[in-house]
Structure formats: structure tokens, C-alpha cells
């Protein structure tokens, strides 16, 4: 049952009780099985703007009199900031403001999470990673701002640093935060360490399970740190006026959350800051955190001028959202008949210098695909001198899936069982206890595996040096706070205001759902993303929630609007409300004596609105819980050059449950995009740190995301197992597609190369080393 706040219903004088034949205004149960609009592939409303260069992204907005803001960043991985002298910079002609941490006093009131955000936005006493912001300037132009940065003198006391996950957990490792005592351990440890938290999940008795096994697979896997790699760098324009009100234009996945954090950090009232989300040039989780936005606001406040800040690519890599680097021990016990008797894993995830929940997410998702009697996972959050880890598409799940799905594949091979059949035998199903705790409802892993088993890809012949791999993936998905408005114009066309940022075509999907519910054509519905001043709070577009949550809110808003439309039709006909039904975009009169009344179209009712009570609208404010967990199975073929270790992906297939694909082209796009990012992660993407703790490759030249010629076509198969908690059966689709690729490719490369790959990315030096002798090549 979807929960709704009681006061979120339409105007009570107009809200009619639902008739038995129609769903209530907020009845979540599946109300549709045959769709007219949903499931079609219309053109997206923002398409023309985006192919003509008209669409405005973060860096495309300007305000009169705006200044250019730039950030001075730490060149050290770990250093105490002894003093910052800004006097010369401030005196330079054209410089209008210089700020340091002193200009952003601590308003966080003991909120540790918020304090970490503040400390990450601008270092206070310690610079904790290469690229950590230390000061910022605003000047009349970029050249002046650059010159000013050079005039700021920072005296550092360089501290010992650690960037490697396994080094950081050693007893003698340099401490990132001397006040960090591992949480989740009772009694609390007496000494500080770099382990911020220990989390455990599981059930049963793994030791007994391992004793019952015929075969034990035990290995340690490693993954390197990656970046979301959105093509649009972070950008914003901030303007604070002397009366304390402010405007922020910014590329973000969640302008309401940005408003909340920025206001809290700057000590502003939330209502005094209006945040407008620009078109967003990719986020993938990296734009769910604030970075330099508070600095832009603080500079604007100090200079009393608008300030524009745009990160360089170098800054994006050094100082915004990478993933964790991980080191994961897996142990799997298997019987010869194919039963997994026990699974355990210890997962060490780097967090950057701040407390996070990345290992915890890895520990929760690791074995989620399987029905295990005995399972235990331990997650260790590891602090290191690297940038603060940010969410990246199903955060932490791909690394864990790489480790577990590699072990599962190896186990199947060891007992001589087909890897798909082995997974089907052990797959979680309705009623299975998940490895993270709760018992599953209806879930889709079985169907994706069955579809994989029957897919022609599984039977296609392989050439020399080629190998095939497959893997499964899991992600939770979630919903969250959502607020939408639906306004009917005088001509009967409809405007939707939503607060979930459109990252990949959701405006089209949302318009489709409203067209479906109202029974009007898609092109009569226009969807816009509203700013924080014109709509209630919306959580961010993350957790695969954009289309899931906003479509649910809009369907409810449409039902509320239908109730109003019916009341207006009743007025126009001068008949009782209970004699009006809504069907196919029209009000129909029913009952004795009314049957001959011609149906009234939405357009006709809208036209008479001025005389029937005024504007017609529908609203909904909901907490969209019930997103429903998501599973996928991927199959891939690779060819490995035995002389160079280079891997080419030759074929790739994604099979995933969408619940109901609202706009199938954009569902396919999510599947393909996630797979491509996973392929990059698996093969070539990694942060390379030098011995000095500085990032060596903060460019698209040396941080190698897949280019067009690296990839094959990516085939997709959309399964539709309706989500019972959404009126149209929709599930989130955005994230799960990045979970299986690391493992699927590792399994394929292992099969092609004849050696088990345990370190991602499987860059050519690593593969060649594994294929020959690790010592000889020194990898």
C-alpha cells in the first residue's frame, strides 16, 4: 500500500469517493493492463532544444555583472593548513572576493554528516586529499581569477598519507582522522584507526555450511577507483543579494537537496534560497552531492555580485565523486550437486576521508541474488586520502557483484556445472530470505536467468581467443519524497511540473503516464522541471526513482484532476456528480435520463472552467515507497589478444526486469548506458595515484572511458514483471544495468585467457601478466 499524507488529497469539496469501477485517486494496485500511451516511443519534449544547441546546461547560464569564481586546491594528499595569506590576492585589481574556511563558519550544529559536507567543500584545518579545496576567489574575468589564485600563499605541514585500501587498514597506517574509532563494534575500540565502521549481514551458520561443502572457493578480489565520468563538469551561477535572499542555477540531480545543504552550510533560511536545476549533462550519482556550490554562494555574498563557477575536467576528477576502491575476500562452499552450502565475504571499501556507507551497501548486495541457508558479509568502511566517495549508479553493488559472481562462476566450473544452470539452482525466489535480511516478495532474478538460458547469444559459436561470460546483478531501487502539479490550460492541454530532474528522458515518460491516465494524446501534455520556488520538496533523481516516483505522483495528480473534471461536467450538465464517469479523455453521463447527453471532452470542460469554479488542477505529494528490488542478467563475449592482453568486447546482451517499460527506447538506453559504463570499469577505467598521493590521470586522455569504436551494439531484452506497488507496474530501471558487467566481463576474460582474473580493471598489463608470469612482468 502506498502511503499518502491525508492532506495531500485534492480539495475535499471536489474529491468524490471512488466508484467501484474506477481506481481511487491514490490506489496503487495495478489498475491498467492494456495501455494506449504507455509503452509507445514518442519524441521527447526536450529533443529539439538538445539537437539545436538551445538547451541550457549548467555552464550555459549567465547573469548580468557576474564574476568568475575559481578554487585553489591542495597539491598534497594530506597536510595541515598552518596559515593562508590572501592579502595579495585580494588586492589584485579586478578581484572582488577571496574566501577561505573562515568565511564559511560552522553552522552545522553537531550534525556530523553535514559537517563532513562542509569540510569537503572547503578544507578547515587539514587538506585531506589531492584536490581538496582550500580557498576560492571571484574576479571580473578568468585571467584575473587565475592570477589571484597564484597570489594566495598557503603554508602546509605535509602529513603522512595513505591512498591504498589494504595499506590503510594496517595497524601502522597513517591516521586520516585521529578521532575515528570504528563504529559498529562493541565495546568501542580503544584506539583510533582508518576503519570508520564495521557492518555485518547474514543468517545461518557459515562454518557449518562450509563443513558441509564438497568444494570451497576462496579468493581475494580487488577493484580500482572509478569516476562517473559525466561529460558535463559541475557548474553553477550563484547570486546572493544584500537582503539575504539568493538564487542558484546549477546542474544537479536534486535541486531541493542542494538547496537544503547549501542553506544549512551558509546559515540561510531554506525559503530564502531558490535553486533552479539546469539541463543536466549526466550525473550517475555524482551530482547528488554538493561540491563548489556553497563556495559560489559565499563568494557572491561577499562580493555582492553574481558568481559563476565551472569545474575544469581536472577538478572533476580530483575533487568530485569517485567510487570506492575495494578489496574483497570471498569464500563459497558448494556441494557437487550444485547447492551453495555457505557464502561469506569481507568487503573493504575506501570512503575517501569521510565516513560513508559504501562497504555496507556492498555487504548488503553481495549475495542478494541467491537463496542461501548460511551467509555472512562484513563491510569495512576504510578512510583514505582520496576524494570523498560519491554514489555511482547502484553504488557499491558492481564491485561486490564482481567478487561474488566471479566466485560463483568458478564454483560452477569446478563442479562441472553450466554457470546458468548453477545460478538458476541457487537463485533467490519469492519467500527466500535475502542475504541482507528481509524475506523477498515476488522478484525477477529467475526470469532473467531463464531468459538468458534461452537467449540465442548463449548458443552462438565462439572463435579463437574468445570467451563468454555471464553474471547477475541486484539493486534495491527506491522511491522517496515526491511532489507534482498538473495544470489544465484553457485549451485543454496539460502542463506538468515535476521536481525530479530529467537525466535521461523522464519528461517524455511522465507525459506518457499522464496522457494514459487522462485519456488524451501525448502531445497535449508538456512536462517541465520546476524550481524550488514553485514546487514542494522532491528528493533527488537517484536510486532509480525519477520515473517511478514522479509517475506515481502524477498519476495520482491526474486522478485528482479527473475528480475535478467530473464535478465540472456535472455542473455543466446540471446532473448529480455520481452520474458522471471519466473515460477516454471525456466525461460521460450515466444513469436514467442522462444517457443521451453527448460526452464532454477535456477541452470542452477546460474551456468552461472560468464559469464552473476556476482553474482545474491536480496535485499529489507522496512518499513513494515500494520501488521493488531489481535484478538483471548480462551475457558477454570477449576476445583477448594473447600477445598483448588487450580485450575487445565482441557481443553484449542485457536482460532486465522493468516492471512496465513506460518509454521502451529510454529503458533500453538505461540498459545500454549502464552496460557501457560497466565495460569501461571492467577493462580500463581507474584512478592511478603516485607515491606522493597525487592523482596521476585526471584527464579524459588517461582516464579511459569507452569510446564509440570500443563497443559493439548492446542488445537488450526488457522483461515486464509488474511492480505491485505502482499503478502501472513500473520499477526503477536506471541503476541495475551497471551491476553485472564487471563480473560478466571478468568471467568472459577468464574463459578466454584461461586464467581467473581477480583485479579490475582488467587492463592489458594485468591480463598479460596473468596469462604469462606475474613476476616476470612485474604487475
Amino acid at each position, binding site marked *: 500500500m502506498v502511503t499518502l499524507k491525508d492532506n495531500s488529497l485534492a480539495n475535499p469539496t471536489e474529491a468524490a469517493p471512488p466508484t467501484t469501477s474506477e481506481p481511487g485517486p491514490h490506489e496503487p494496485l495495478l489498475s491498467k493492463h492494456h495501455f494506449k500511451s504507455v509503452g509507445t516511443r514518442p519524441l521527447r519534449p526536450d529533443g529539439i532544444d538538445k539537437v539545436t544547441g538551445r538547451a541550457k546546461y549548467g555552464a550555459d547560464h549567465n547573469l548580468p555583472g557576474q564574476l568568475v569564481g575559481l578554487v585553489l586546491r591542495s597539491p598534497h594528499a594530506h597536510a595541515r593548513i598552518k596559515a593562508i595569506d590572501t592579502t595579495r590576492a585580494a588586492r589584485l585589481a579586478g578581484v572582488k572576493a577571496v574566501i577561505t574556511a573562515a568565511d564559511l563558519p560552522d553552522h552545522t550544529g553537531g550534525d556530523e554528516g553535514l559537517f563532513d559536507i562542509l569540510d569537503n567543500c572547503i578544507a578547515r584545518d587539514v587538506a585531506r586529499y589531492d584536490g581538496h579545496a582550500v580557498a576560492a576567489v571571484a574576479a571580473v574575468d578568468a585571467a584575473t581569477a587565475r592570477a589571484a589564485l597564484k597570489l594566495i600563499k598557503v603554508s602546509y605541514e605535509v602529513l603522512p598519507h595513505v591512498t591504498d585500501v589494504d595499506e590503510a587498514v594496517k595497524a601502522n597506517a597513517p591516521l586520516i582522522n585521529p578521532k575515528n574509532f570504528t563504529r559498529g*563494534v562493541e565495546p568501542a575500540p580503544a584506539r583510533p584507526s582508518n576503519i570508520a565502521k*564495521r557492518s555485518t549481514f547474514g543468517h545461518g551458520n557459515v562454518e557449518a555450511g562450509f563443513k558441509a561443502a564438497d568444494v570451497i572457493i576462496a579468493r581475494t578480489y580487488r577493484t580500482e577507483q572509478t569516476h562517473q565520468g559525466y561529460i558535463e563538469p559541475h557548474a553553477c551561477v550563484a547570486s546572493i543579494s544584500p537582503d539575504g535572499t539568493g538564487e542558484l542555477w546549477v546542474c544537479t540531480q536534486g535541486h531541493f537537496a542542494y538547496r537544503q545543504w547549501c542553506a544549512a552550510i551558509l546559515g540561510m533560511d531554506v525559503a530564502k534560497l531558490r535553486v533552479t536545476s539546469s539541463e543536466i549533462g549526466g550525473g550517475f550519482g555524482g551530482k547528488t552531492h554538493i561540491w563548489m556550490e556553497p563556495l559560489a554562494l559565499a563568494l557572491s555574498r561577499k562580493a555582492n555580485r553574481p558568481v559563476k563557477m565551472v569545474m575544469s575536467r581536472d577538478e572533476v576528477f580530483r575533487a568530485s565523486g569517485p567510487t570506492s576502491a575495494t578489496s574483497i575476500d570471498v569464500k563459497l562452499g558448494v556441494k557437487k550437486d550444485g547447492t551453495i552450502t555457505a557464502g561469506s565475504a569481507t568487503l573493504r571499501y575506501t570512503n575517501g576521508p569521510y565516513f560513508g556507507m559504501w562497504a555496507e551497501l556492498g555487504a*548488503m548486495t553481495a549475495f542478494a541474488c541467491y537463496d542461501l541457508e548460511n551467509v555472512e558479509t562484513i563491510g569495512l568502511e576504510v578512510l583514505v586520502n582520496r576524494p570523498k566517495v560519491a*554514489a555511482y549508479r547502484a553504488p557499491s553493488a558492481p564491485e561486490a557483484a564482481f567478487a561474488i559472481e566471479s566466485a560463483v562462476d568458478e564454483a560452477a566450473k569446478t563442479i562441472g556445472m553450466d554457470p546458468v544452470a548453477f545460478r538458476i539452482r541457487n537463485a533467490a525466489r519469492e519467500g527466500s530470505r535475502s542475504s541482507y535480511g528481509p524475506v523477498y516478495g515476488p522478484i525477477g532474478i529467475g526470469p532473467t536467468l531463464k531468459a538468458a538460458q534461452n537467449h540465442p547469444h548463449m548458443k552462438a559459436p565462439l572463435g579463437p581467443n574468445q570467451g563468454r561470460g555471464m553474471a547477475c546483478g541486484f539493486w534495491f531501487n527506491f522511491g522517496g519524497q515526491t511532489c507534482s502539479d498538473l495544470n489544465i490550460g484553457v485549451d485543454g492541454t496539460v502542463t506538468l511540473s515535476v521536481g525530479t530532474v530529467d537525466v535521461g528522458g523522464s519528461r517524455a515518460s511522465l507525459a506518457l503516464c499522464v496522457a494514459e491516465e487522462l485519456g488524451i494524446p501525448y502531445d497535449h501534455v508538456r512536462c517541465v522541471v520546476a524550481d524550488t520556488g514553485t514546487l514542494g520538496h522532491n528528493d533527488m533523481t537517484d536510486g532509480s526513482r525519477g520515473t517511478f516516483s514522479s509517475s506515481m505522483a502524477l498519476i495520482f495528480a491526474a486522478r485528482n484532476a479527473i475528480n475535478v473534471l467530473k464535478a465540472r461536467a456535472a455542473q455543466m450538465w446540471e446532473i448529480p456528480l455520481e452520474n458522471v464517469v471519466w473515460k477516454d479523455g471525456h466525461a460521460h453521463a450515466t444513469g436514467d435520463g442522462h444517457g443521451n447527453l453527448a460526452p464532454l471532452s477535456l477541452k470542452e470542460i477546460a474551456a468552461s472552467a472560468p464559469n464552473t469554479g476556476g482553474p482545474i488542477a491536480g496535485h499529489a505529494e507522496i512518499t513513494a515507497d515500494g520501488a521493488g528490488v531489481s535484478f538483471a542478467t548480462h551475457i558477454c563475449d570477449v576476445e583477448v589478444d594473447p600477445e598483448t592482453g588487450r580485450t575487445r568486447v565482441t557481443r553484449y546482451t542485457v536482460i532486465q526486469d522493468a516492471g512496465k517499460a513506460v518509454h521502451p527506447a529510454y529503458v533500453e538506453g538505461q540498459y545500454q548506458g549502464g552496460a557501457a559504463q560497466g565495460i569501461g570499469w571492467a577493462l580500463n577505467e581507474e584512478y592511478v595515484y603516485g607515491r606522493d598521493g597525487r592523482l596521476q590521470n585526471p584527464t579524459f586522455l588517461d582516464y579511459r572511458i569507452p569510446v564509440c569504436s570500443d563497443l559493439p551494439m548492446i542488445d537488450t531484452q526488457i522483461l515486464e514483471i509488474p511492480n505491485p506497488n505502482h499503478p502501472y507496474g513500473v520499477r526503477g530501471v*536506471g541503476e541495475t544495468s551497471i551491476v553485472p558487467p564487471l563480473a560478466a566481463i571478468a568471467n568472459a576474460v577468464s574463459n578466454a585467457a584461461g586464467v581467473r582474473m581477480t583485479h579490475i580493471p582488467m587492463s592489458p598489463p594485468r591480463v598479460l601478466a596473468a596469462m604469462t608470469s606475474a613476476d616476470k612482468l612485474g604487475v
Partner: protein
Amino acid sequence: MEAARHIHLWGALRPYAGGASVIVVEARTIRELFRKLEEQFPGMTPHIRRGIAVSINGRIYRDQWDTALPEKGEIYLLPRIQGG
């Protein structure tokens, strides 16, 4: 004892409940549950502040604290997950 609910804890919470994996709390809603947990197990407060999700019969609630806790069925506390 009609309000007594069996509450399953994930690993990180267990140390604050003496190592128990299941505890009994008298609570009819998520809000009441969190209040009672803070009263009975103060060590859990930072976790609750940072966010705890509640799985009720496999369905995960992150925000809706007025959600009723059914007398029968499984109630499982989980970290409040983040997404990308």
C-alpha cells in the same frame, strides 16, 4: 502486549542491543519504534539520525514514519540506502 513487535536488527545495530539479532519492542508505528529504540538503546541514536530503513514483509520504507507495524509479519531494520 498487543503492541509488542519482533524487530530484526542488522549487524551494525546488534552490539547496541547486547548482541541480540531480534528484539521485542512495543511499537505500533515506525515513529514509535524509533522513539523506543532511542530510549532503550541509546547507542542506536547516531544510526537513527543517519537514517534507518524499515522492511515490513520485504517492502522497504525509508521515510514514512507513520507507517503501521503489523502484529504479524517480519519487521527488519536496514541501513537507509543511497542511490546513484
